[in-house]
């Protein structure tokens, strides 16, 4: 079974520029998450989608971050304009509910460096 795919794997931009990340979840997984992982910390949720609807975006900095999942499959996360503190790894995860509960599967991440 193919895993969660993300691209690009690495991105270097200057502050105030914009950037977009793409995620393709595991086939059939209705729920999709974007997490931000700053160096030395655990991942933190940015946004959760169920199919193409937003379930939780309470921790998404909406003045600069946006995300969409138009057809309930692929998703894009955009930052505009980027700040230095956005340097992090952006992880996409998709999930399946089986047995007693939900298990999330993670992609390889996009490592962003803002200069």
């Amino acid at each position: 079974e193919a895993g969660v795919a993300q691209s690009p794997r690495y991105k270097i931009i200057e502050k105030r520029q914009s950037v977009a990340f793409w995620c393709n979840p595991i086939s059939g997984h209705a729920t999709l998450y974007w997490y931000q992982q700053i160096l030395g910390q655990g991942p933190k949720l940015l946004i959760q989608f169920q199919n193409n609807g937003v379930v939780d975006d309470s921790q998404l900095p909406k003045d600069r971050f946006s995300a969409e999942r138009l057809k309930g499959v692929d998703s894009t996360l955009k930052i505009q304009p980027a700040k230095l503190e956005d340097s992090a790894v952006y992880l996409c995860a998709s999930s399946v509910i089986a047995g007693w509960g939900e298990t999330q599967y993670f992609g390889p991440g996009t490592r962003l460096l803002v200069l």
Partner: protein
Amino acid sequence: AQSVSQHNHHVILSEAASLELGCNYSYGGTVNLFWYVQYPGQHLQLLLKYFSGDPLVKGIKGFEAEFIKSKFSFNLRKPSVQWSDTAEYFCALRHGSGNTGKLIFGQGTTLQVKP
């Protein structure tokens, strides 16, 4: 607010030594608990999970964890580590209400196993 705390930030062991990584959480309700591992250059992978039932859960590669509700703990153990266990380990919590929801991660523990 829910939180996860991993006490050991960096652990160095020799091969064949026993391993125990601490994980404590704060949340008064039903929880699902997870340990993820990130090998160098790879993505986050699920080691094991606890949803309900037997508090001693076994995962891949000889790892196990014990859920102790009275201590709000979910420590990870392995009786004999190998050099290939060198990785970063993350404990995570999901509150048990609802079918899906964000994972709350600890800050991670880096394990270095010396050959």
